[in-house]
């Protein structure tokens, strides 16, 4: 029989997080600090609106680009929070999670052989999506000494005449790094000079603990060359609703909408009605959850300081990225032993790119009580490793 598979797909490595989760799911009373989704339930008023839409029989498709009212609310939100004006009719597309927007955004913009710049450590989907779109992914290794921010020099160095898009993943999963206005201004200058585009993945925008998130699209000359990707999963604890969106230049959104309409038709209707409520009345919920995450973040940073574990201070998302180089083992060895000996699952930094070697991703999408138990075990483990040396 012929090989039924496509070589291009077979060659793509499976996600490195998967392996650990498989072990955890079989291990009794293991604690996981590996999950990348909020521990909060979706706020009730948002769920209620979803239920109400079902009661009213709103069970049909929406238009391909998404409910008009939702696109309008997204435009209000983008203006209110980030001071960027979009035309709801032409510059917004509702997608099945931010993930779909990444995929179809790349597919809409890439010609074969063009290069996509991917700063790492970062979310694991960019590289495979770029490959599937026919691009050549070019990795930029971010450094801890720069607080895992992307610098203009690093960007400049990676650009060739084939470079088409820079993916800008901040606030960052897995490092928790953010880019502030001055950092973005330096990047924007390079982007404009070389006439390339930005796919700015701002799914964690609302989880910024230092100052309000700044979108690169709000900088002069950047809106016309930026696709902003955002969604409801992280800000409103709506992961299971599968709802995201892309805002960008009309010509790009039009082509993305074409792929979306043929592959997906439209995002789930119930989720879209719930999302309208989230945008209209959800600012307080965001603030409440942000406060809770920030408390946990401070708790973890303090715990690392107390056990002498090096960790740069992250100001975004819900991850910390401590450095374990002092123990002289790889991230994977550390994570494996930690799981086997203390039954706590963390994700090795290498799951997010080779430059994640020597780091761990610890999620604080867990209650303080859970974190305390896990941190107690980490402290014990770290002491043991130091004693071994």
């Amino acid at each position, binding site marked *: 029989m012929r090989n039924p598979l496509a070589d291009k797909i077979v060659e793509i490595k499976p*996600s490195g*997080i*998967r392996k650990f*989760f*498989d072990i*955890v*799911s079989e291990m009794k009373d293991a604690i996981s600090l590996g*999950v*990348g*989704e909020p*521990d909060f339930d979706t706020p009730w008023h948002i769920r209620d609106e979803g239920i109400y839409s079902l009661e009213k029989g709103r069970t049909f498709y929406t238009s391909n680009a998404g409910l008009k009212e939702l696109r309008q609310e997204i435009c209000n939100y983008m203006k209110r929070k980030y001071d960027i004006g979009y035309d709801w009719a032409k510059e917004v597309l509702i997608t099945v999670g931010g993930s779909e927007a990444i995929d179809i955004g790349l597919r809409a913009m890439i010609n074969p052989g063009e290069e996509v710049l991917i700063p790492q450590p970062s*979310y*694991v*989907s960019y590289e495979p999506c770029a490959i599937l779109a026919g691009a050549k992914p070019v990795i930029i290794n971010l450094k801890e000494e720069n607080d895992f921010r992307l610098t203009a020099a690093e960007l400049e160095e990676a650009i060739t005449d084939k470079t088409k898009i820079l993916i800008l993943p901040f606030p960052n999963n897995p490092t928790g790094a953010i880019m502030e206005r001055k950092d973005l201004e330096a990047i924007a200058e390079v982007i404009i000079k070389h006439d390339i585009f930005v796919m700015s993945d701002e799914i964690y925008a609302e989880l910024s603990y230092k100052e309000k998130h700044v979108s690169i699209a709000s900088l002069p000359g950047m809106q016309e060359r930026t696709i902003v990707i955002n969604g409801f999963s992280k800000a409103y604890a709506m992961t299971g609703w599968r709802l995201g969106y892309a805002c960008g230049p009309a010509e790009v959104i039009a082509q993305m909408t074409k792929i979306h309409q043929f592959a997906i038709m439209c995002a789930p209707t119930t989720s879209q009605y719930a999302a309208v409520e989230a945008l209209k009345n959800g600012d307080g919920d965001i603030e409440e959850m942000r*406060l809770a995450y*920030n*408390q*946990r973040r*401070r*708790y973890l940073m*303090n715990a690392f300081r107390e056990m002498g574990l090096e960790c740069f201070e992250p100001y975004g998302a819900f991850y910390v990225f401590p450095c374990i180089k002092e123990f002289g083992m790889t991230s994977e060895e550390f994570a494996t032993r930690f799981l086997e000996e203390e039954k706590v699952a963390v994700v090795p930094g290498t799951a997010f790119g080779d430059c994640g070697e020597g780091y761990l991703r610890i999620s604080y999408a867990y209650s*303080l009580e859970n974190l305390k138990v896990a941190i107690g075990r980490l402290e014990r483990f770290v002491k043991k490793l130091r004693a071994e040396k």
Partner: protein
Amino acid sequence: MREELLAIIEKNSRIDLKELAVILGVQEIDVVNEMQALQDEGVICGYHTLINWEKTSLDKVTALIEVRVTPQRGQGFDNVAERIYKYPEVRSVYLISGGFDLMVILEGKTLREVSSFVSDKLAPLEPVLSTATHFILKKYKDHGTIFMQKPEDEREMITP
């Protein structure tokens, strides 16, 4: 910091001061001073424990009593409210807008004890026009806390 501190200790008054300082991102001494100030100003009025008495062997009856009263010249409702809240078996007294005036929450050992309080002490008060007593049958949620076993973490393993 004030509102954030209050929000935390409203849910967990047993949190230790050092930890409170860490998660608020301030010095411990600032927390100590702020707590003292909040107590002095009467913002913090006490530290209580939320107990689900239904799970104990102790019998308790809680009643909500709607009370309609005639406000008194110069005193409004304050005088009669004081007459009522001085009884130790009265847990809470609220002035309410709408169909009645005072909401009295009363705790007793038995139904009879509660009803005799209403008939012997509350109803005879001169400004009291009428009362309506509702007994609580089951508490599902109190002070923002749901009285059920905590659900397990239902998040499934997913990548990326």
